[in-house]
C-alpha cells in the first residue's frame, strides 16, 4: 500500500556499496544476483551460524533483563492507549502483533474519532523503516538459514534485542536463533507490561489532575534522549523541529509529524558526502 517512492528519499543514483553493516562484517561484497548469497563466504564468523535450541535459550536469557527494562515503556504505552480510548484487549492486541514501541506510542497519540487510519498506518511505516536497515545488517550471518527461520526471527525484532543480537553474532558464537529467543523475551514483557499499563490507566480518573496528560510528552523527551546520536543528530533534528512547528500552525491534521520527519531525512540524503 505504501510505495518506497512515497518517502521521496530515493532519487539519488546510489553509491556502489551495500553499506548496511555498520561494522566490518559486510566486507563480503553485496549480493548482485538473486542467489549470490548462497555461495558467499562469511569471513566475519569464526563458527558456522546454526539455528538451534541452545541459541534460542541463550537469546531468551540474555534479553530478559533488557526486556524487563523495556517494560517501563510498555506501561507508559498502556496508560496512553487507555487515554486514547483503547480497551485492554485492543492495546494488548496491538503490542502482540506490532511489537514496535515508538511507533505504537505515536499511533495512540494520533488516535481520534473517527480513526485517521491512513495517517496512522503511514506514520507507523515511516517510523519503522529503520527496521529494514537493521534487519539487512544481519544478512551476513543469516544467509545460510532457511527463509522460515530468517523471517520468523525478524518479526520479533525490536531495537534492543537487535542490538544484543548484533553483539552476539559479531562475537562469532554462531547462534542463529539468538534473535528469535531474545525476541520472545521482548514480546512477553512488552505484552504483559502493556496490559499492566492499560489497567493502571483505567484506575486513574481525570488524567490531567495527576499530571498523566504529560506522560506522552515525557515519553517523547525520554525517547529523544535515547535516540540522540551526538552531533550528527543536530541538523536533522533542527530541521524536524522548525518544519513541524511551522506545519502544525499552517496545515490542518497531523501531517506535520511526517513532514518534519521526511524533511530531516531529505536533508540528510542531500547533504550526504560519503
Amino acid at each position, binding site marked *: 500500500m505504501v510505495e518506497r517512492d512515497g518517502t521521496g528519499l530515493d532519487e539519488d543514483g546510489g553509491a556502489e556499496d551495500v553499506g548496511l553493516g555498520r561494522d566490518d562484517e559486510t566486507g563480503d561484497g553485496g549480493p548482485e544476483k538473486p542467489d549470490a548469497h548462497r555461495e558467499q563466504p562469511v569471513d566475519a564468523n569464526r563458527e558456522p551460524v546454526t539455528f538451534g535450541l541452545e541459541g534460542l535459550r541463550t537469546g531468551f536469557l540474555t534479553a530478559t533483563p533488557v526486556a524487563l527494562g523495556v517494560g517501563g515503556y510498555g506501561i507508559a504505552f498502556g496508560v496512553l492507549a487507555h487515554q486514547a480510548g483503547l480497551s485492554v484487549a485492543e492495546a494488548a492486541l496491538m503490542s502482540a502483533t506490532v511489537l514496535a514501541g*515508538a511507533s505504537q506510542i505515536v499511533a495512540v497519540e494520533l488516535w481520534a474519532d473517527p480513526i485517521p487510519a491512513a495517517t496512522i498506518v503511514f506514520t507507523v511505516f515511516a517510523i519503522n523503516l529503520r527496521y529494514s536497515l537493521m534487519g539487512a545488517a544481519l544478512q551476513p550471518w543469516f544467509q545460510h538459514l532457511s527463509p522460515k527461520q530468517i523471517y520468523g526471527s525478524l518479526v520479533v525484532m525490536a531495537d534492543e534485542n537487535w542490538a544484543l543480537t548484533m553483539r552476539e553474532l559479531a562475537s562469532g558464537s554462531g547462534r542463529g536463533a539468538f534473535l528469535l529467543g531474545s525476541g520472545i523475551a521482548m514480546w512477553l514483557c512488552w505484552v504483559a507490561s502493556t496490559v499492566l499499563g492499560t489497567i493502571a490507566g483505567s484506575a486513574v480518573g481525570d488524567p490531567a489532575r495527576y499530571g498523566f496528560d504529560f506522560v506522552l510528552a*515525557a515519553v517523547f523527551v525520554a525517547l529523544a534522549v535515547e535516540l540522540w546520536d551526538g552531533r550528527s543528530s543536530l541538523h536533522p533534528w533542527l530541521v524536524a523541529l522548525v518544519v513541524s512547528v511551522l506545519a502544525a500552525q499552517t496545515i490542518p491534521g497531523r501531517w506535520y*509529524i511526517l513532514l518534519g520527519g521526511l524533511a530531516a531525512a531529505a536533508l540528510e540524503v542531500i547533504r550526504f558526502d560519503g
Partner: protein
Amino acid sequence: MTAESLSLDPVVVGVVLAMAVVTAVTKVGGIWLVRRVEVSERLEAGLSVLPGAIVIAILAPELTAGGPAEWGAAGVVLIVMWRTESILLALCAGVLGVVLFRAVV
C-alpha cells in the same frame, strides 16, 4: 476485569492489523531486499535519521502549545533520563514535576 476492557472494535482491530502488516514488512523487507538489490549509503543515511526526527516533529509542536509548567517538566525528564537512563524514573519525575509546576505557575 470488565467486559468493556475485553471489547474489540472491528475498526480498531483492522487498523491494528494494518499497523502490524506494515511493521512486519519493514522488519523483513530490508533483508529480503538486500538479498536482491543494493541500497545506497546515501539513502541509508536519510532513513537512519527518521526515528529521531519524527520524535522531534511530534514533541516540538506539543511543547510549543504548552506553557512554562510543561517546559520545566520536559527539562526534568531530559535531565533525569540523561543521568539515570531509566525510563520509569524519568517519567515519574516528569509527571511529578508537571503537577508541582502547575500548582506554582
